[in-house]
């Protein structure tokens, strides 16, 4: 862990512990309403999704525009298993993880041979296919009518002679989502610092050098795609049991784009950056939803605001708010160089 933030190890750690402590007590702060708690759960959900997506563009350097397809698959897996079989959430999460991974492999194995842009188009097509499938296979998903009446998450200890709690209200979901975020971050951290993560980073930085080190590109890209898809599906599984209602239009392409924006805004490839990106975009979306009507503007204007943010980021900070350490180091070096160049000019004046 230390080697990713060699210079700021201490400061970064203190900030992280502070944020975690704050996250633990947020629900008990006096001004926190159920609505606010709902937003924070949404932030957590998008953190999981963004961390999952980050594997593909952030760790492997491949553009993925179809991530929401896996999110939808996970959500409907969870919803249908709950409605028809009444499975527990704790069984559904691993099943959704596996189902996401299977679809990731099915889509990735034939298409990851394609280079950059062509692959992105295929993924885009996939997410559209998922929406069409959910919309049209009415016998399975009830189509545009949506899938209502999904049971909320419950903790059932009756098997061991204990009680059964059904999670109602936002508070338990808050801690459940926080727990899931922590598990995701934990997994990401361990992958980053392992043979698997290094192989991904090698592919991102230089494919030719990577194969020369004995890395099979297709295998490792498919693994990346499958794990990414699996986390997307887990996010979906949580979403289904949290909002207890699903409909096809929740999984439109816009969601993919929004999650991609979070990654780009936060810092592609950096776990903490991606989480910051999710936090900023989700909370800003909610703030604008309140603010824009007061200014006499329609709510849809916030999409314009997102576009504006992306344009500004590309112009002033293309590597994101929290770039990966190497890029951050280069940016620092660049600033120093620019100052040196500016120096003599200032003297002339």
């Amino acid at each position, binding site marked *: 862990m230390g080697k990713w933030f060699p210079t700021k190890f201490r400061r970064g750690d203190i900030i992280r512990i502070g944020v975690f402590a704050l996250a633990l007590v947020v629900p008990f702060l006096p001004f926190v309403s159920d609505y606010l708690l709902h937003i924070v759960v949404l932030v957590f959900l998008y953190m999981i999704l963004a961390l999952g997506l980050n594997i593909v563009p952030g760790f492997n350097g491949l553009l993925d525009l179809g991530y929401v397809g896996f999110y939808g698959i996970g959500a409907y897996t969870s919803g249908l298993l709950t409605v028809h079989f009444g499975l527990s959430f704790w069984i559904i999460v691993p099943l959704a993880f596996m189902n996401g991974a299977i679809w990731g492999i099915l889509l990735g194995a034939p298409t990851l041979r394609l280079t950059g842009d062509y692959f992105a188009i295929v993924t885009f097509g996939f997410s559209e296919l998922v929406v069409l499938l959910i919309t049209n296979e009415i016998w399975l998903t009830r189509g545009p009518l949506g899938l209502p009446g999904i049971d909320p998450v419950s903790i059932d200890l009756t098997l061991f002679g204990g009680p059964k709690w059904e999670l109602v209200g936002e508070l338990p979901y808050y801690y459940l989502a926080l727990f899931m975020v922590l598990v995701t971050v934990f997994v990401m951290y361990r992958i980053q610092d392992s*043979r698997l993560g290094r192989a991904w980073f090698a592919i*991102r*930085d230089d494919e030719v050098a*990577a194969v*020369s080190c*004995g890395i099979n590109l297709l295998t490792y890209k498919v*693994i990346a795609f499958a794990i990414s898809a699996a986390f997307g599906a887990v996010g979906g599984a949580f979403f289904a049991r949290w909002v207890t209602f699903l409909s096809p239009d929740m999984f439109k392409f816009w969601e993919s784009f929004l999650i991609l924006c979070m990654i780009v805004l936060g810092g592609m490839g950096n776990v903490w950056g991606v989480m910051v990106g999710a936090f900023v975009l989700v909370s800003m979306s909610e703030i604008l939803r309140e603010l824009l009507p007061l200014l006499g503007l329609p709510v849809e204007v916030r999409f314009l605001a997102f576009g504006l943010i992306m344009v500004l980021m590309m112009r002033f900070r293309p590597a994101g708010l929290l770039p990966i350490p190497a890029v951050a*180091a280069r940016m620092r070096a660049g600033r120093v160089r620019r100052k040196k160049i500016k120096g003599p000019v200032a003297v002339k004046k």
Partner: protein
Amino acid sequence: MKPILEIKGLYKNFGGLEALRDITFEINPLEIIGLIGPNGAGKTTLFNCVAGLEKPTRGEILFSDTRRSVSIGGKKPESVTALGIARTFQNIRLFDNLTVIDNVKIGQHCRTRSNFFGAVVRTPGQQEEERLVTDKANEFLEFVGLAGRGEEIASSMPYGNQRRLEIARALATEPRLLMLDEPAAGMNPQESRDLMALIRRIRDNGITILLIEHDMKVVMGVCERVVVINHGQWLAEGRPQDVQNNPKVIEAYLGKGAADAASAG
């Protein structure tokens, strides 16, 4: 002794362009062999064919150890690496955003096994493997003279060190044949001398070396045998001094007039 690498009648066409034409030569175990020729002669194409990055149009490439020979023409680059052939690149190809030590650790990829499960759960086997990978990576860094620089970002190092790092990464794949593509390019005389010493030390550790180089001081100083190719064809072969005085070689590099002048003088 049985040659470690045999190239037999190798052809490589790019559309209508014949980049390699009937190349045949052998490399004996523990030799330091130079591959020279004017720009565009096909040296790097030959490297790419051996390393699996290009598929030869015709011909055979045999890679042997004491027990058996494997035909590697047209094999995938990752399998060639796993068999024991490593390479560096003419224009340095490091993993720029990673630390120096991670670059070397990636070289160990094909010699290690751990997977997603091992990474997340940190099984005892995975931990043992990571320890081994880290130890070996540090050894290789020390071997090429980059000890203590493991935590630097690869792209932030000076040019000469990046060359050394690329060699360390290639060594980390634990090859029996190491192919160096212009390792002395852009080096000053002192760095070139250090590089020659390093190449000899690598050979002394039991690794055969095939070297593309334009710097004749390096070629003459370190190679025991030289193969010359020109326009994709085998031109000459022999001890460095003999090749240096071969009229055909002088003609290829400097033109016919120079060759005549040399043979007359």
